[in-house]
């Protein structure tokens, strides 16, 4: 580490070094006598511009700036899961051990624990040819996840020495590789990777498997594929965070990277507390065993907020390289965009729309493009799915972050203020939202759930659209004047909204629902509709049908039919038949 300059000017998180310097673009630097971490973001003949990842109060012109010669990187290795980090992968638990309840600046901690010994099983032999990505060792990182240490992507050659199976730290050499130019490198359990560079893969696949979330409006109506991208825009209080929590808890991804980007401190605490207690149904262990949290709360330094998104994505790509399905929850990408705007403003760049920098769209694009189902360098398959929350200003979806995000994601789950006000959660608006994956995933649904699934889904969506058109009329003239078949559409629409779309996150049965139950629920609603239609076509008035309690009983199925007792649906089918016969008898 050598000094390459002295501070000339300070403006919030931006620090200038005067004159022509030897710093590199995107280089990690240490700024000032307290050695705060920073990154070089612009170089000219006149000055070098550095963004500092910590509070700069008290810093003075004339203090030194040190070069590291390396870009801002994260350490990748065992110890990432079941842990919580700040925006540049500093472990918050270690910071708490070093100081008190506050995060003070200049905390000097190792990114991953270098003293802990991991039980290592080495999977390569001397003489074996290896390439970047080859798995060299396996470590049971948590009860749920087997960590696979890999040869860093830029190394290739022949193994000349391996360590015996046993306990090692992440800095102990595990294998030695003789590279093509005859130089020998040591490969350890951990490696470093610059956060702004995507980790290389062999090729990208089109995904045909859904990321099953247990949330009906997602899985049945607007599904996301493994390796897909989705945006959740919504004004405050519409339930973005709640929806992210639900997906993080119940989705069938192997690993969850939860990025709290500029959000509330209490929410991160909640995730930490909840996930430690909740049991992952797949593994039987706590959810934290498969989760890593990146927390840059809204009162932490803004430059680290910009980095936190990349840090989280790099961690996700690392686990993808091992062959896992990883899902990133980014809450909220708007705070990241605002961090870009704030830094851009301090740099006095020419603003585009609403003060956001002109490169907003390209930054959003490069972020979402890091998602995908990939063939990794080591021939395993893994995926990174990105689900990003968007917090539009004033709840208005026409603002730049929502609009630019919409261009680069394939799932759009628009949250609606009016639905949230009547506490219809998840408040996903079924008219505005869409998923471009429906077609890609149809075959999977047909083979794995039911041959009728896609068709049922289509019918449900159609009814909802018809209902919405009819409701416009009802708002003007009341429902009494409508013909009976339209009244039926409104009633079935109500059953779908209350009994199917609405899902109670706090109800033990309803919080996550298996696909098969979702399918059965759609089926039974459509069966009810079919029977009612027959009655109406025979001239029975809707008012007569509504006297029966069958509609509210179908709505209550979500609570009354446990997720593991799906044979109860046959009884409901019989009840609908009885209801049909009863009406027929009365009117015979």
């Amino acid at each position, binding site marked *: 580490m050598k000094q390459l300059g002295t501070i*000339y*000017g*300070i*403006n919030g998180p931006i620090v200038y070094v005067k004159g022509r310097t030897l710093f590199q673009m995107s280089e990690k630097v240490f700024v000032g006598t307290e050695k705060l971490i920073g990154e070089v973001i612009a170089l000219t003949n006149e000055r070098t511009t550095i963004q500092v990842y910590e*509070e*700069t*109060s*008290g*810093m*003075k*012109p*004339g203090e030194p700036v040190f070069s590291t010669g390396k870009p801002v990187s994260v350490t990748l290795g065992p110890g990432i899961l079941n842990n*919580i980090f700040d925006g540049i992968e500093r472990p*918050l*638990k270690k910071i*708490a051990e070093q100081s*008190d*309840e506050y*995060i003070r600046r200049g905390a000097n901690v190792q990114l991953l624990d270098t003293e802990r010994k991991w039980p290592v099983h080495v999977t390569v032999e001397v003489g074996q040819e290896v390439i970047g990505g080859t798995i060299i060792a396996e470590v049971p990182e948590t009860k749920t996840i087997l960590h696979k240490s890999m040869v860093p992507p830029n190394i290739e050659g022949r193994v000349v020495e391996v360590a015996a199976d046993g306990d090692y730290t992440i800095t102990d050499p595990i294998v030695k590789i003789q590279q093509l130019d005859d130089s020998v490198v040591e490969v350890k359990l951990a490696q470093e990777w610059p956060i702004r560079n995507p980790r290389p893969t062999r090729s990208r696949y089109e995904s045909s498997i859904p990321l099953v979330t247990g949330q009906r409006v997602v899985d049945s109506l607007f599904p996301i594929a493994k390796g897909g991208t989705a945006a959740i825009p919504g004004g*405050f*209080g519409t339930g973005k965070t709640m929806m992210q929590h639900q997906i993080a808890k119940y989705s069938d991804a192997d690993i969850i990277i939860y990025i709290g980007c*500029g959000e509330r*401190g*209490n929410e991160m*605490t*909640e995730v*930490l507390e909840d996930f430690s207690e909740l049991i992952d149904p797949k593994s039987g262990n706590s959810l934290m065993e498969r989760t890593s949290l990146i*927390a840059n*709360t*809204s*009162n932490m330094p*803004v430059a680290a907020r910009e980095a936190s998104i990349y840090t989280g994505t790099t961690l996700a790509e690392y686990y993808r390289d091992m062959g896992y399905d990883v899902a990133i929850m980014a809450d909220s990408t708007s*705070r990241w965009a*605002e961090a870009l*705007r*704030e830094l851009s*403003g301090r740099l006095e760049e020419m603003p585009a729309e*609403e*003060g956001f920098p002109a490169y907003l769209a390209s930054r959003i694009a490069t972020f979402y493009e890091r998602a995908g189902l990939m063939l990794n360098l080591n021939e395993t398959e893994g995926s990174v799915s990105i689900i990003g929350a968007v917090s539009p*200003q*004033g*709840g*208005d979806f026409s603002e730049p972050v929502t609009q630019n995000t919409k261009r680069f994601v394939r799932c759009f789950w628009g949250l609606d*203020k009016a639905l949230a*006000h*009547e*506490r*219809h959660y998840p408040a996903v608006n079924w008219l505005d939202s869409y998923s471009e994956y429906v077609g890609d995933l149809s075959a999977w649904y047909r083979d794995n759930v039911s041959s009728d699934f896609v068709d049922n889904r289509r019918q449900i969506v159609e009814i909802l659209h018809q209902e919405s058109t009819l409701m416009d009329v*009802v*708002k*003007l*003239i*009341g*429902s*009494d004047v409508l013909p009976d078949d339209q009244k039926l559409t409104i009633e079935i629409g109500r059953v779908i909204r*209350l009994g199917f779309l609405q899902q109670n996150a*706090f*109800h033990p049965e309803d919080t996550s629902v298996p696909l098969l139950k979702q399918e059965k629920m759609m089926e039974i609603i459509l069966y009810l509709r079919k029977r009612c239609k027959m009655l109406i076509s025979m001239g029975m008035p809707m008012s007569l049908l509504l006297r029966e309690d069958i509609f*509210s009983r179908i709505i209550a199925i979500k*609570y009354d039919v446990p997720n593991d007792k799906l044979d109860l649906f046959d009884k409901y089918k019989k009840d609908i038949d009885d209801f049909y016969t009863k009406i027929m008898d009365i009117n015979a």
Partner: protein
Amino acid sequence: MSIEYLGLDSINGPLVVLEGVQDAAYDEIVEFSVQRTEHKLGRIIEVYEDKAIIQVFESTTNMSLENTHTKLTGRSMELPLAPEMLGRTFDGIGRPIDGLGELNYVSKRDVNGNPLNPVRREYPRNFIQTGLSAIDALTTLIRGQKLPIFSGNGLPHDKLAAQIVRQANLGKANDEEFGIVFAAMGVKHDVADFFRRTFEESGVIDHVTMFLNLADDPVVERLITPKVALTAAEFLAYDQGMHILVILTDMTSYCEALREVSSSKQEIPSRKGYPGYLYSDLASLYERAGIVAGKPGSVTQIPILTMPNDDITHPIPDLTGYITEGQIVLDRSLEGKSIYPPINILPSLSRLMKGGIGENYTREDHQSVADQLFASYSKVNDARSLASVIGEDELSETDKKYLKFGERFENHFIGQEDDEDRTIIETLDLAWDLLHILPRNELNRIDTGMLDNYFNKGR
């Protein structure tokens, strides 16, 4: 002995530029002496080699390029702290103004504070009963929460905040462990007097620390007032182990002061001229609420803001809502119907309520009842707009029941006397009474089992 610089290089609104300084630090506090008689404070907001841009906390009137002496203090803005701060009144930057003399300070702390480490926070779960049905049942206040009141000019937000302070059971029965920190930013004299009178009448004035920056006090000083108040609150909560309720009023004045300074710094504005960092700046205040694991005290915040033109999408309420854990929204049309407190429950929300209500905290049916009231009341609005088109007589029987429910709900559930203190059990029973107006099959937010238990109970 630090160097004093004579003269300035430019004065522009609240900003002055001083060149030729040595050893100036970013965010450092400087002292000015004008004509050797008047003393002012300022903060360095930008520094380039030997040139410092300084924001003056008081007005720059009387300052000239020649008559001002500037001294660097070598520290950032600090607030001296003492347990006896309770019961005292200070100005907007923390100097006592009640004529009771200096305090016996025990420590000093940077007013900017530091972010709380999320691993050291404790998730807030303790219900605070305010005795107001609309808040207790539907937007429950939790100890350690930040729950703002979104209001408009002329709406009774002060009266509501005062009632919450009077009725909220903040501490235990002996009342020794609670305190109130009141920060006024740009409010009128009579508002400050109203709060002081309320605190006196309810006998809590010994537990109140007031920081006053009134409407005619310097604008820039306003930027420091909430920071000073929260520093005092953190000291009392985490060092002295008290449960502190912080009232910040009016956040709108604070944001306007921020905009004023930003524009005189010639920063690139984002929405409505507010600076791009308004979100981060507000977050650095609101995030200072909470509970630290293993420490006895807590900081609960009730910021009050007046929405310009009653517009909830205005940047100030909008960004606030994204940071705080919910909001209580006051509504002019309810005020017009003489309903007090005029809380519009539909846009109101408490994000922490889910963890602090239910079987072990309030009653098992609380969440379901709340969901049902929200759902049913939102239907009332549909029925009302339909009635205004086709006339009330033409409505279906169910819609007529909704109208009746809506009227009773607004007058008897939301509405209450300004000294009426309802227990949560009374509030929930009242809610069931109102839900009986509706047919049972309309109550689809409540679990079948719970409906059997409570619906028709005792009827």
